[in-house]
């Protein structure tokens, strides 16, 4: 197999990798915010549930979570797994896992906000939702960009874990070609791709941080 063919096959996997990446961010970022609200809630039970959720998601391997999410419908509920569920399971597992990490990042950001900002908003008559979305959240986003960058870079590499469900993302394909052709080139090529992807992610996040630098 020529290198060109190899790369062409890898490209197919790349698309899936990129899809996993963006879909995970798309759903886990807002879900993380919701979980962080639960984690900071005045209601004890809600707080306990959120805390437990986060501890399980952070305390068990993502690879195991992928397997559980994929096989649970069959083993727990006896539902036959349709072939189309594979990709959904991958996204679901990633979203559930990353939302837990993002929740803690949001929480750290929200709790670091000076109480004076809330008080000023209150005296000026802002409602609770207005205070959060207009005054607090924009400042929180600026504060949490560095840890979010970290998490996002980890996500790029973690997408390769989808191979446990034989989802045809880039790493899965690279491994298959490597085994078939007894060549390390596809794996190297995959490595280069992950690296370039992350360069782009880091570059974008740096740009975002700069954009937020208009105030201190």
């Amino acid at each position: 197999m020529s290198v060109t063919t190899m790369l062409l096959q890898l490209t197919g996997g790349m698309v899936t990798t990129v899809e996993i990446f963006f879909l995970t961010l798309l759903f886990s970022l807002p879900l993380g915010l919701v979980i962080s609200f639960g984690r900071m809630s005045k209601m004890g039970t809600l707080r306990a549930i959120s805390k437990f959720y986060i501890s399980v998601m952070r305390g068990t391997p993502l690879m195991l979570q992928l397997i559980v999410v994929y096989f649970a419908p069959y083993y727990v509920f006896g539902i036959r797994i349709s072939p189309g569920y594979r990709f959904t399971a991958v996204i679901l597992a990633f979203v559930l896992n990353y939302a837990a990490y993002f929740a803690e990042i949001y929480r750290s950001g929200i709790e670091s906000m000076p109480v004076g900002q809330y008080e000023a908003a209150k005296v000026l008559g802002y409602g609770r939702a207005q205070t959060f979305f207009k005054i607090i959240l924009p400042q929180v986003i600026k504060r949490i960009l560095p840890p979010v960058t970290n998490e996002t870079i980890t996500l790029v590499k973690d997408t390769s874990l989808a191979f446990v469900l034989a989802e045809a993302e880039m790493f899965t394909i690279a491994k298959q070609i490597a085994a078939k052709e007894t060549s390390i080139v596809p794996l190297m090529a995959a490595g280069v791709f992950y690296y370039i992807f992350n360069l782009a992610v880091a570059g974008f996040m740096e740009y975002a941080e700069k954009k937020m630098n208009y105030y201190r």
Partner: protein
Amino acid sequence: MNLLEINHMKKGFDGLGVLEDISLSVQKGEVVSVIGPSGSGKSTLLRCATLLEKMDGGELKYLGEAAAWEENGKCIYAGRQKLKEIRKHFGLVFQNFNLFPHYTVMKNIIDAPVSVDKVPKKEAEERAVKLLCQLGLEDKKDAYPYQLSGGQQQRVSIARALALQPKILFFDEPTSALDPELTGEVLKVIKELAKEHMTMIIVTHEMQFAKELSDRIIFMEQGVIRCQGTPEEIFSASDERVRDFIGKFTL
């Protein structure tokens, strides 16, 4: 009519009494300064009056409307909607400004009128420009708070409070976070407001300022109003504690 009326206000933190029994009423156009040693409850009084802190007992009224009252020994607050109405009557200027750092000066001033009071943006902007001119900040409307000196930031926060056209304005040690050089410019602005008969309650450590500008000075100690009166009365008070306290400031 009294703009503000406080009757028998009580407040404690973790069983520790901070305000014992405060009664105070303020009339339209009056400038009242609150002085006293640290820990005497001045700031707590202000925070209870501005609904940032819930009092344990007593009565709080703005323009005759009750924000809180006592029932069977318990302090009851009005409903959310009512409190929202009542909040419109007053403004508060904080010791450390609490401007919104991600908004420009202009946005800091107009955002509450526009998004809370639904004032048309254009009108709010015109009002803001007028205020900025009045406070000597006409060239700062596009600046962000971090680009301003402390004195300028405090003047912006005064403008922000005034933009909502409150009937009564509270100041919580408005110059305590400023160095002496910048204190003057903020005090000057407050004096201007006094000339325009803005009703104000000012917690301060600036004795000379309080003396010059107040219609009434309240001396607080250990959670009670130890004495009150015109500046002349207070500054020539026979009460030993008051003389002692003022003496320390006018060495």
